[in-house]
């Protein structure tokens, strides 16, 4: 069997696929963050908490109301999105004119509150959620047995990421959104309801996080800490991709998932830090990130 640096190509291919699975989560989460930062100029530290809430609500939906995974996939992001809209109206909207640090502090505080509430209710060991029956058999890729559910994660997140990119970059609604970001006052002068757009954008960004949470629910124990374990890495992804860049978030998310996966083979001890090393290197060479535009 051919080997690369002492690792068989078969094992390497397997790790690449797994990297793509993790990258899908990175992409979905960093996409939401990028959308929110791009439109609202808010560094949404509560993003990981909403991802966690998405997963916990999936569990609650099944155990308290008997709602299946498939319904949760649609309903949970909707409900969490509505919660986010309420938060935006009640709290965040007052902060747009202030330094971004205030938004960061507020959302960080919210994240701690959400985590604390769920920790108090369910503890940290986690809640079990089984994989939907349709996906119980693994898929034979020739070089590895990939659980079908993981393949589904890659597929569905790619579709969602592409749809979001298309919506923002290629449609009229997206053009209006981008105009509102560029110059809110001028856009409003054209009779467009900018605050409404901003509110919906926040709701949408958070719904993406909750969607990632639903996807993650069957793959790991649903724990109040699952968001905070992941979110720092996601922030690094957004910084590497370029703050606010939609395409940047998607591409870097996937790429970093793969790089992290490879690190787990060659030097597993560094797998938690490799993202930050890359971030430091990118910031040295391109301070605005790989896909970011330098502000003039």
């Amino acid at each position, binding site marked *: 069997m051919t080997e690369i640096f002492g690792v068989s190509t078969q094992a390497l291919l397997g790790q690449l696929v797994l990297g793509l699975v993790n990258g899908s989560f990175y992409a979905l989460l960093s996409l939401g963050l990028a959308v929110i930062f791009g439109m609202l100029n808010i560094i949404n530290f509560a993003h990981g908490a909403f991802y966690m809430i998405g997963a916990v609500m999936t569990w609650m939906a099944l155990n308290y109301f008997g709602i299946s995974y498939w319904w949760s996939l649609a309903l949970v992001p909707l409900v969490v999105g509505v919660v986010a809209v309420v938060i935006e109206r009640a709290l965040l909207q007052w902060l747009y004119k202030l330094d971004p640090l205030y938004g960061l502090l507020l959302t960080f505080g919210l994240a701690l509150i959400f985590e604390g509430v769920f920790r108090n209710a369910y503890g940290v060991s986690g809640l079990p959620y089984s994989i939907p029956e349709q996906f119980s058999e693994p898929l034979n890729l020739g070089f590895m047995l990939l659980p079908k559910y993981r393949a589904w994660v890659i597929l569905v997140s790619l579709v969602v990421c592409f749809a979001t990119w298309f919506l923002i970059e290629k449609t009229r609604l997206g053009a209006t959104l981008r105009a509102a970001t560029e110059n809110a006052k001028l856009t409003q002068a054209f009779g467009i309801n900018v605050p409404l757009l901003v509110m919906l954008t926040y709701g949408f960004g958070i719904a993406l996080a909750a969607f990632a949470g639903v996807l993650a629910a069957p793959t*790991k124990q649903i*724990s109040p800490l699952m968001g905070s374990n992941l979110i720092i890495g996601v922030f690094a992804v957004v910084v590497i991709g370029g703050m606010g860049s939609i395409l940047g978030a998607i591409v870097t998310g996937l790429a970093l998932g793969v790089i992290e996966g490879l690190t787990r083979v060659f030097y597993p*001890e560094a797998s938690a830090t490799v993202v930050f090393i890359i971030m430091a290197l990118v910031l040295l060479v391109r301070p605005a990130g790989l896909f970011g535009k330098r502000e003039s």
Partner: protein
Amino acid sequence: MKRRLCCALSLAVLVSVSASAAAPKISGGVVKIGVLTDMSGLYSDLGGQGSVTGAQMAVEDFKAQYKPSFKIDVVYADHQNKADIGSNKVREWYDREDVDMVTDVLNSAVAIAVAKVTAEKKRILIDIGAGSTRLTNEDCTPYSIHYAYDTYALASGTAKAIVKQGGDSWFFLTADYAFGHSLEKDSSDIVKANGGKVLGTVRHPLNASDFSSFLLQAQSSKAKIIGLANAGGDTINAIKAAAEFGITKNQSLAGLLVFITDVHSLGLQLTQGMMLTDGWYWDYSDETRKFGKRYFDKMKKMPSMVHAGTYSATFNYLKAVQAAGTDDADAVMKQLKSMTINDMFAKGGKIREDGRMVHDMYLMQVKKPEESKYPWDYYNVKAVISGDDAYQPLSLSRCPLVKK
């Protein structure tokens, strides 16, 4: 007038001096116990608030049984699994709040740091939740006791039993910090000593978000047994991912440190048949069941070995203070090391010169879902491993306090 006042004053001084000679010499008038644990992170279910409750229950029971003349106070703090936060908190406790004894201190990295501060300040550490054998070897101190279990005992219980059943080739999935390294080393020594082979190891960061990559490496090693040298949330996620990737069909998992809270969280479907070693099980005897139920009424879950251990350590520490008539660390340590621990946690437990509390350990097998008759009915006790067999013999100790 002045003379009489002088006389009265000196009399008063005399009386108070003699009074204090009769009463126990307690610094600050209060015996203060600090529970340092992970209140919010991945280990907070197996320790956390439950450890605080254990210590508080011990204080209540001690007061009821022994009617001490001194006051007892329990304080607690979250070390967030960070050695620097833990040692700073303990330093503050010793310097400013006059804490006499610190307990639980799960997470070996934190425990080793806290043991150093404790020795420097001449107070007492009775560690429950940390696993590393370094606490009674390289990092042993005259002021620390390692109470409930250690990685050597876990390895000699679980690894030995599995190798004897034919699981002779191993691959380790190791949490990349003091505890994981210690557990991996002790287990591979046992595996090799019993004629098994270690085919490889992969070290993952603490709190790893995804285990599939690591498990795939374990799978391609073709080892019969995948040893999980990690704990808490990491073990849980590794077991879950192993089931998803179908690894458990051809290879077996050995949870080297599995707490009952982990089994509860994963459910018997995923964990059935797994062998593990534990220092305590709530459903073992009438005495343990009684404690388990009392604890359950307070916390709505059954206690882990760490919770029960914190109770036992606190209770026996207070007994030692009462017997020594002081909270002076040297006197209490001497008392503790001369005592035999006999309670619901340990029978005939002895604290050795290296600080190791030697007591029986239990080899368990997780029940099948249909065998479990009532909530928290999870284990079959396969064997009781006597303390002398379970723990590292003193002759192998690397602790400088042990006279050879």
